[in-house]
C-alpha cells in the first residue's frame, strides 16, 4: 500500500534524524567541562538578566526620532542575551530545546516544569507590554517604541526556560559521563 510505504519512509527518516541529534547531544554534553558548574551557569544567567535590563531600559528611553545610540544599547543587550542563552543551552543539555524523543522521563519532567514557568512569565510580560503600549499610544513614535519594548520582553520571556534550568540544575557529576567501557570507578 502506498500510504504504508510513505509512513515507513517517514518513520525511518525520523528515526535517523533523532539518532543524528542524539549523537550530536552525546558530543556537546562533554564540551566545556570547566563551565559545567552551577556557579558558572548562574553567572551566565546574571549576565543575561543584565542584557535584558539593558534592552528594556533602552526601550523605555527611546525617542520618536530613532535615537541610534539608544538603539545601539538595545542591540548590545540583545547580543549579550543571544550569547548567554546559546552558552546556557550548551551547558544545560537538551532539556530546554531538545525534541521530546531525545528526552527520558526525568528530562521531560524538568522540561515540563521549566516550560510551564516560561509560559507563565511570558504571558505576564506580554501583559506588561500591552499596558505599556496603551500608556504610550498617543505619544509620537508609539509604534516603534512599543515594538522595541515588546521585542525586548519577548526575547527575555522566551529565554526564561533556559534561565530557570541554568539557575536550578545541580553541578554536573563527572561519573555520569564516564563511558560504558570505562566501568565504574568505585567498583
Amino acid at each position, binding site marked *: 500500500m502506498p500510504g504504508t510505504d510513505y509512513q515507513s519512509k517517514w518513520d525511518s527518516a525520523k528515526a535517523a534524524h533523532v539518532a543524528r541529534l542524539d549523537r550530536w547531544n552525546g558530543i556537546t554534553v562533554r564540551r566545556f567541562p570547566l563551565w559545567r558548574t552551577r556557579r558558572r551557569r548562574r553567572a551566565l544567567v546574571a549576565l543575561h538578566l543584565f542584557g535584558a535590563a539593558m534592552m528594556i531600559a533602552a526601550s523605555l528611553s527611546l525617542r520618536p526620532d530613532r535615537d541610534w545610540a539608544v538603539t545601539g544599547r538595545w542591540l548590545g543587550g540583545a547580543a549579550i542575551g543571544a550569547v548567554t542563552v546559546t552558552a546556557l543551552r550548551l551547558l544545560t543539555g537538551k532539556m530546554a530545546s531538545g525534541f521530546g524523543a531525545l528526552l527520558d522521563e526525568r528530562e521531560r519532567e524538568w522540561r515540563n516544569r521549566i516550560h510551564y514557568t516560561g509560559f507563565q512569565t511570558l504571558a505576564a510580560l506580554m501583559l506588561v507590554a500591552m499596558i505599556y503600549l496603551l500608556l504610550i499610544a498617543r505619544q509620537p513614535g508609539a509604534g516603534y517604541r512599543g515594538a522595541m519594548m515588546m521585542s525586548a520582553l519577548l526575547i527575555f520571556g522566551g529565554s526564561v526556560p533556559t534561565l530557570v534550568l541554568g539557575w536550578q540544575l545541580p553541578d554536573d*557529576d563527572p561519573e555520569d559521563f564516564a563511558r*560504558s567501557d570505562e566501568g565504574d570507578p568505585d567498583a
Partner: protein
Amino acid sequence: MSPVRRGKELPIYNRLQVLRAERGMSRAALAEAVEVNPQTIGALERGDHYPSLDLAMRLCAVFGLPVEAVFNREPFTPLSTQVYRVGER
C-alpha cells in the same frame, strides 16, 4: 521529583549504586540497558529523582531482582550486614 506526587512527600530509597558496583557497571552502561540518559541514573542514586513504575521495573529486570529488593520506603541496611544476619540464622 516524582512524575506524580500528591499529598505528603514520602521518600523512596534505592540500592542502585551498590547493585551497580557489585556488577562493575558504569552509570552509562546501566543507562544504556534501561534506555535513559546517564544523568538520570545519577539523579536516581542521589535521590534527586524518583522513577516511574516502568523505569523501576526496567531497572529491576537488569539486576534480576524484585522491586522491593531495589526500592524501599525505609533506608536500606548495608548489604553485607543483611547477608551476615541471614547467615547467622
